[in-house]
């Protein structure tokens, strides 16, 4: 295992070192010590490596991730795993606002709570939150799955497209054009796989599914006066 002390080599050198790892690298396991809440740790990775950050991170940790697995052994700041394409990101603590925003693929697991705007404009990423999520989560979510083992805050799934939202606890309020939907066997299967991958022992049957009522998709001539 390779260890990088962020307080010694600095952010740019650390990210440069991680970016230099190719698909066939032998150095597949990395540890970053002394993160001290720094921004943009392990951003833009594109190799099948595993990076473990020993502490809490600031803005945009593991942003734009492809292929890599990033473990955060603490809490994560705003925009964690933003625009992830593939790979996995695990946060042991809580995540601040807009975790997994605009993500196209991969898996983001938050063992604690996520703050507001979790999965905003998600485009294919899978997000599993063991705790609660804040308001405006999955706003304009286009595709992918957001799984919440705890409760959801206000305006869940506002203006969402085809993202699937699964919540075990209560939902404070649903956003515009978001509704509870029927849980079919194929959804239980998706949920079972995601919960297993995220290390949660929650039962798929305890969740409710929410999604788009599909009323905001198209221009309705009856609404012309509103514009």
């Amino acid at each position: 295992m390779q260890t990088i002390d962020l307080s010694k080599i600095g952010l740019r050198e650390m990210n440069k070192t991680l970016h230099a790892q190719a698909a066939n690298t032998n150095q597949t396991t990395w540890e970053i010590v002394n993160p001290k809440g720094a921004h943009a740790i392990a951003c833009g990775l594109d190799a099948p490596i595993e990076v473990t950050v020993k502490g809490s991170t600031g803005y945009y940790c593991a942003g734009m991730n492809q292929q890599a697995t990033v473990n955060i052994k603490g809490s994560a700041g705003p925009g964690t795993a933003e625009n992830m394409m593939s790979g996995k990101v695990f946060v042991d603590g809580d995540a601040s606002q807009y975790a997994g925003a605009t993500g196209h693929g991969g898996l983001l697991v938050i063992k604690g709570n996520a703050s507001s705007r979790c999965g905003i404009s998600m485009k294919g990423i899978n997000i599993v939150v063991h705790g609660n999520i804040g308001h405006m989560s999955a706003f304009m979510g286009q595709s992918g799955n957001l799984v919440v083992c705890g409760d959801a805050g206000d305006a869940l799934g506002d203006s969402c497209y085809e993202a699937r939202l699964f919540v075990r606890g209560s939902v404070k309020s649903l956003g515009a054009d978001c509704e509870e939907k029927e849980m079919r066997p194929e959804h239980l299967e998706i949920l079972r796989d995601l919960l297993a991958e995220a290390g949660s022992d929650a039962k798929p049957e305890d969740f409710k599914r929410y999604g788009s009522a599909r009323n905001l998709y198209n221009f309705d001539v009856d609404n012309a006066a509103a514009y």
Partner: protein
Amino acid sequence: MCGIVGLFLKDKSLEPRLGELLTSMLITMTDRGPDSAGIAIYGGETQGRTKMTVQSDTPDVAFDGLDKALEKALGGSVSMRVKSTHAVLDIPAGTAANVRMLLTEMDRGIRMMSRGDSLEIYKEVGLPKDVAAQFDVSNMAGTHGIGHTRMATESAVTTMGAHPFNTGDDQCLVHNGSLSNHNSLRRKLRRDGIHIETENDTEVGAAYLTWQMQNGATLGDALKNSLDDLDGFFTFVVGTKDGFGVVRDPIACKPAVMAETDQYVAFGSEYRALVDLPGIETARVWEPEPATVYFWSHNPTSPTSAKAA
């Protein structure tokens, strides 16, 4: 952007280090706003005395013999500590309004930064490290304090546009965000006789709290009402004689992190600001909820219901 830090000490043994800890927290936040910086320190009070922190761009002239002149006009003892462009006037309790009037009459170009029994505010244009060094903040002791580093959006980069803003006796406010209805609110408050000096949005936020409390609201009520009456983005941290409070607007896009241990409660715009605090590894760290008023106080009777002085 702007960066905010706050530290409320529970453990008395940390009190001599308050200035040092706050300074280090604020310097970490420098890249959230390099325009101006300020710090409010609650250093303790003396029975029968109160304090006024004043500022001048020409301190050599403005503060020369100021204590003696005030003493003569006031007929009570006045002492003065000059720190660079600021001076702390130690005056008899109950004479603050009188001293303020005398300072205006003297026409020495002196501006008031703060008034209160325990509070001192130091703020100037410049980087946190320079402003902290200018006033030797690192060597200041106290029970609690808040700091701010500004990225100006709504008004000019000046001393008077720097945070913290003094809202009432021993009360101050720092702000991360921007208020969009500050012009109409300023007109309304001025009509009601509230003194507002600058075109700054946060000063209107501070004046709003003052106005609310003059009309009988508690600080807790005033903060709750601000959620309805202020339009815009804000994370506010307010300092009071006994502690501090935190409130975020309902959208809560301006960041906030809190940490609590047996020794302190700390606030930072980012976790980075908190990483060098003692025992942070085992602290309870969380994000304050939107549209929720939080308070910590050294006074065991409810601080949110305490009337403004």
